[in-house]
């Protein structure tokens, strides 16, 4: 059955392989170039603590602007693992859609074996592609990560464990829909939409609640808040003007920043604003960069767990309900 399963998945595997090769061919030279610029300009030694006016303070922004395009590309590249997953869900659904499962289940193997083999191959290929993409992203972005941390959404979503989890989630949604619906194209398109919805939910609501965020309140004039580099590399959930206890002050979400108030890197200026001296305290809620793996592990557990449950549900449904 493994040969049959592989043969039925061959086209999908070749497509995914070709796309991976093309991506690697573009990205690896860029990565090598970026790494050499990074070393050459001595950015490794700068860390992220570049003070304005120093050599590092000039080199880091220019480096970041130069490779800014990569950031934009990476926002889109987080769609690749789930798309690969939908591709690898197709052979399973196609058998149910076209009726060839009736042929395969009436050879001498049991339908349980067919289900386990097909879903197993789909999972293996999906995980492999997601893993390769994650490794590639981690390698490529090493210099940028060193400067910016790994919690920015385009980085966090492309590196570590979560790309694998999201690929499994997309696979699970697709095969579960496909098992019930038994129509390949509608099932895959719907799965993609549901995946994007689930993804938006995690990004905008769930992720910041997965671990207890750090909350810091400090007097603007007196310093003592988290450093620029800490916040730069952290996942900042809220940052607002507050009273001494950290309670937000209604209407005060914009402040006028004077160049001397160096501790306010993230405030945007537009329209009328309040003077910081009027209130004097700033509160920031954030997840520090050091908790990257903790956050990844929790998110992986939840998302991959749901994906695995959906795959199992698809297998169960197929085993029990389809003839």
């Amino acid at each position, binding site marked *: 059955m493994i*040969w049959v399963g592989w*043969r039925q998945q061959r086209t999908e595997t070749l497509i995914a392989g070709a796309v991976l090769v093309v991506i690697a061919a573009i990205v690896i030279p860029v990565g090598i170039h970026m790494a050499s610029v990074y070393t050459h300009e001595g950015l490794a030694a700068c860390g992220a603590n570049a003070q304005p006016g120093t050599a590092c303070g000039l080199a880091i922004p220019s480096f970041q602007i130069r490779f800014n395009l990569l950031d934009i590309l990476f926002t889109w590249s987080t769609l690749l693992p789930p798309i690969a997953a939908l591709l690898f869900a197709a052979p399973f659904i196609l058998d149910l859609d076209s009726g060839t499962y*009736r*042929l*395969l289940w*009436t*050879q*001498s193997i*049991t339908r349980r074996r067919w289900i386990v083999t097909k879903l197993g191959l789909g999972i293996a290929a999906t995980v492999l592609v997601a893993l390769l993409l994650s490794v590639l992203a981690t390698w490529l972005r090493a210099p940028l990560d060193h400067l910016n941390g790994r919690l920015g959404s385009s980085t966090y979503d492309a590196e570590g464990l979560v790309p694998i989890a999201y690929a499994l989630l997309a696979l699970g949604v697709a095969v579960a829909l496909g098992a019930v619906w038994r129509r390949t194209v509608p099932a895959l398109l719907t799965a993609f939409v549901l995946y994007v919805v689930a993804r938006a939910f995690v990004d905008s609501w769930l992720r910041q609640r997965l671990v207890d965020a750090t909350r810091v309140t400090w007097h603007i004039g007196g310093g003592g808040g988290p450093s620029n580099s800490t916040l730069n590399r952290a996942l900042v959930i809220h940052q607002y003007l507050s009273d001494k206890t950290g309670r937000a002050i209604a209407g005060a979400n914009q402040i006028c920043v004077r160049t001397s108030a160096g501790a306010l890197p993230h405030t945007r200026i537009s329209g009328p604003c309040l003077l910081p001296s009027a209130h004097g305290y700033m509160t920031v809620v954030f997840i520090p960069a050091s908790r990257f793996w903790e956050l990844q592990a929790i998110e992986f557990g939840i998302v991959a767990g749901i994906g695995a449950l959906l795959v199992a549900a698809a297998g169960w449904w197929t085993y029990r309900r389809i003839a």
Partner: protein
Amino acid sequence: MTEAALSTQGLGRRYGSTWALRDCDLEIPPGTVTALVGPNGAGKTTLLQLAVGLLAPTAGNVRVLGHDPYRQPAQVLPRVGFVAQEHPLPRRFTIAETLRLGRELNPTWDDGLAARRIDELGLSPAQRVGTLSGGQQAQVALTLALAKRPQLLLLDEPVASLDPLARREFLNTVVQAVADAGIGVVLSSHIVADLERICDRLIILAHGRTLLDGAIDDILAGHRVLTGPRSSAERVERIHDVIRESHTERQTTLLVRANGHVYDACWELHEVDLEEIVLAYLGLDRAGRGTPSGRRAVVSR
């Protein structure tokens, strides 16, 4: 091989509130060629899918070569060749890959037989299944089923989608295989033509129930058309089962399952062919009059 090829006791299968097959009791002896006839929706596909373990029974049980196909697939599947309706095959496979599929998935696979059949069909192993005609695909599907070296071949509407020539060729292949290997065949069809030539048993199904089950020779010997002056069928009915009754102004025609000889001199006796018998049974059922024994349908002309 004394066990029945296929036997069912009170077999039923329900989809939601609809019974696709109900109270089905059958006993198909090994080595026979049995036709399963009935209109679309009669339960033929359901019966065959129950027999090959694709479906689990809602009621009763089914035994194929002595085993339960749903619970003991390992005992049944290697010994049964099945060609599903529309003879599905992976379209992206070449013929050679399709045969390899058979080899990978069947311990009793006969590679020589498969290759020989493909050769006889004039097909090349490198051809893609998706590019073949419907008749050729049906033949490849049949090859896959035969190269398992099954003891029983189950064919679900194998010729329904084929043109008359392809239909003839397909059935000839079946006849040949049966003659060569002595295997039993159960095939479903809503086309009665050709069946008499290749089958020796007939089962008529309609609305999920068995209307008639027997050897074709016995069926042909047992049914007669009686023609006589216009009259009521009452007297005949006391002795024989009237399957269909039709009247013109001056004449009454009865199709009966005769219990013994018909002695009545009022009636002229004719032999009747299989197709007419099948149609009579199905016509009877279309009128919604239940099972044939002791009932009748009136078809006015």
